[in-house]
């Protein structure tokens, strides 16, 4: 058991922190990035590439830097702290995750170097209007033809789907709408005929898109893995993404807690800093307890994200999300309350942390969804 970072990890963390501080230290800059057409600043994406962050989780043989879940955790914590807008999760963790774990050698060769150098952005178009949080609920169809597949259907809430060059799209080649068997994944160019996108801003200042597919043709080598057997891979990549957003949430909670405590020290009422009121002190202390609980579970999620046993991994990640969500709601709400009115304004950063944390809460399943997963399994206490 060892909680220390290696020398390389410390260097990585320092350089990511510096980059994020440079870009987002001045909160007004974030507002200006949001008005860019893609919802983020291209030059910043190039900085991610320069620092090697875009190739981080990929094997060196594939053109990456061989980082593991801990490295991802360090990056995502900084992303959370800075409320960064770039599509790191969409491109590197989700889109890149499918190629990394399910792609053929040819797909890896074609895609990973271009992710790493910042020239190709990906998005994962999977959710559907009726599916809510059920990953197996796929009604979009893929019809096999001699030359490949033809996709029809509608995808919703594809994170950064409007600015992506390449989409990873799920579709059903057989079976009932919610069957575990029969799901396939395809790599589809964003400009493929029959694919239409409607992009929009999300509550937390990021972007997402509705994607409609009408007679979209995908060549046979556009499938990831064995068509019809993709659900396990989807679950794996989503678990990895949940570990990543858990770290992001911890970064955001840490920053929000710090700024709340600072505010308590400086803001005066009735002639004294409001931080001298014991009831507020205790609330700030409870926030710290919640933060440390979430931090512990984000570490746990990082450790379990590449666990070989899928059942064990799935329960562990679900448990992490439950704790992260609980802490996020508690810390977000308490931060607003302790600040008072100022945190309700759009020009103040605290509310934006709260909004991002709220969106993370429902990302790939809310608390109830993940608690069910934990409750349905064997539990988290190893047998004696």
């Amino acid at each position, binding site marked *: 058991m060892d909680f220390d970072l290696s020398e390389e990890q410390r260097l990585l963390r320092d350089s990511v922190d510096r980059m994020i501080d440079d870009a987002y230290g001045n909160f007004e800059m974030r507002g200006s990035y949001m008005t860019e057409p893609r919802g983020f600043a291209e030059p910043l994406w190039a900085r991610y590439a320069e620092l090697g962050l875009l190739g981080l989780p990929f094997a060196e043989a594939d053109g990456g830097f061989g980082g593991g879940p801990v490295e991802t955790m360090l990056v995502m914590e900084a992303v959370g702290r800075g409320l960064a807008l770039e599509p790191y999760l969409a491109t590197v963790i989700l889109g890149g995750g499918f190629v990394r774990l399910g792609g053929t050698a040819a797909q890896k060769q074609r895609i990973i170097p271009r992710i790493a150098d910042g020239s190709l952005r990906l998005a994962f178009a999977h959710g559907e209007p009726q599916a809510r949080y059920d990953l197996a609920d796929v009604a979009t169809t893929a019809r096999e033809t001699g030359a490949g597949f033809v996709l029809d259907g509608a995808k*919703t809430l594809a994170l950064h789907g409007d600015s992506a060059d390449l989409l990873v799209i799920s579709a059903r080649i057989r079976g009932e709408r919610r069957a575990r068997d029969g799901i396939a994944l395809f790599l589809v160019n964003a400009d493929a005929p029959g694919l239409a996108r409607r992009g929009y801003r999300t509550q937390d200042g990021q972007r997402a898109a509705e994607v409609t597919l009408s007679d979209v043709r995908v060549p046979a080598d556009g499938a990831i893995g064995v068509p019809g057997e993709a659900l396990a891979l989807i679950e794996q990549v989503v678990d990895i993404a949940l570990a990543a957003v858990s770290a992001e949430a911890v970064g955001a909670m840490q920053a929000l807690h710090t700024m709340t405590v600072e505010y308590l020290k400086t803001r005066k009422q009735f002639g004294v800093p409001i931080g001298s009121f014991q009831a*507020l002190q205790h609330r700030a202390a409870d926030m710290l307890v919640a933060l440390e609980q979430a931090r512990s579970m984000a570490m746990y999620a990082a450790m379990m994200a590449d666990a070989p046993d899928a059942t064990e991994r799935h329960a562990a990640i679900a448990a992490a999300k439950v704790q992260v969500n609980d802490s996020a709601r508690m810390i977000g709400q308490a931060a607003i309350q302790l600040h008072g009115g100022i945190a*309700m304004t*759009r020009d103040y950063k605290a509310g934006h942390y709260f909004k991002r944390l709220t969106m993370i809460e429902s990302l790939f399943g809310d608390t109830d969804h993940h608690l069910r997963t934990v409750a349905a399994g064997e539990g988290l206490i190893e047998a004696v």
Partner: protein
Amino acid sequence: MDLRFTPEEIAFRREVRAFLRREIPSDIRRRLSEGRHLSKQDMVTCHRILNARGWAVPHWPREWGGQDWSPVLHYILQEEIQRAAVPPPLPFNVSMVGPVIAQFGNEAQKRRFLPATANIDMWWCQGFSEPGAGSDLASLRTRAERDGDHYVVNGQKTWTTLAQHADWIFCLVRTNREAKKQEGISFLLIDMATPGITVRPIITIDGAHEVNEVFFDDVRVPIENLVGEENKGWDYAKFLLGNERTGIARIGLSKERITRAKQLARATPAGDGTLWDDPDFRKRVALIEVQLKALEITQMRVVAGARGRSAGKPDPNSSILKIKGSELQQATTELLKDIAGPYGLPAADGHDGANEPPVGPDWAAFAAAMYFNYRKVSIYGGSNEIQRNIIAKAFLGL
């Protein structure tokens, strides 16, 4: 002891309910229910429909349009307005400045202001809060200095709700800087068209423009716009704030949201059925309902007890109503957001049409924004922490 409504009260409720559904434009009600923000015209329209019926200012003195009702009837009207998702008569007019003028104003002020205020021919906003004051309202610094038959007002107000629509503002201003802080405050009525007033929007985290900063730069206010006596404004402000007795918990609003939440849950697919088929979800709703029922009866106890109490005297239970009422309002917005699930994600963004037509179900687009917006209810009107202080000190003697 009988907790049931009388046949007359039941009949009145039925009458109100029918009237609101018949007379208030249904699209306004739908939009409010979905969490969209209404236009000034929407609000004025509804206010005037109610005023024409005698229901905008029933709690005012009879000669100025009041109805001499029992507290229970007031409560029923208020609850039905909330449950029907009708925008209530503008509180700055009917619950705040109106009663203050009726009680403390002179005859000229009453004639000039009360009818116009009741019919919202004048739209009022409230100039109490100042930057840096927060819950310590009396530490306000906006000052008014006598110059002949005018006051010259300089300073800044903040969190001024709907100032962008307002014709007039009622302000607490400091007229004596030597006195201890509660004793040098006066209550001024100021025409928003007076030169030197600037309104600057504050956009909230849900993207809405509800509140504003209002700046006063050598604003000349005729001395006849002083209400009551100079330096007695704090008393009038306490009277005004003490009037917020029965409305504060907004039971009707929470009921309306729960009713909607149930409808929406029945229409939200989840697994093989809908969210409403999930016993767990229903238990969550049930627990909110239980607490709301308890609070409703607590409120009834206050309402019934109000009969003998003199106006303006705060009821000890109002802090309980504020704390629990705001918690339940927040619980219902949280519930709606969680029902929206993934569709809470797209930005509704200032209700400026950025997400029109909405991604996902119509109502879902505003669920998260409403959740964000409602964090305010445990902050404003005396934060819940201040309410706990009041309970501890004033009632428990700690």
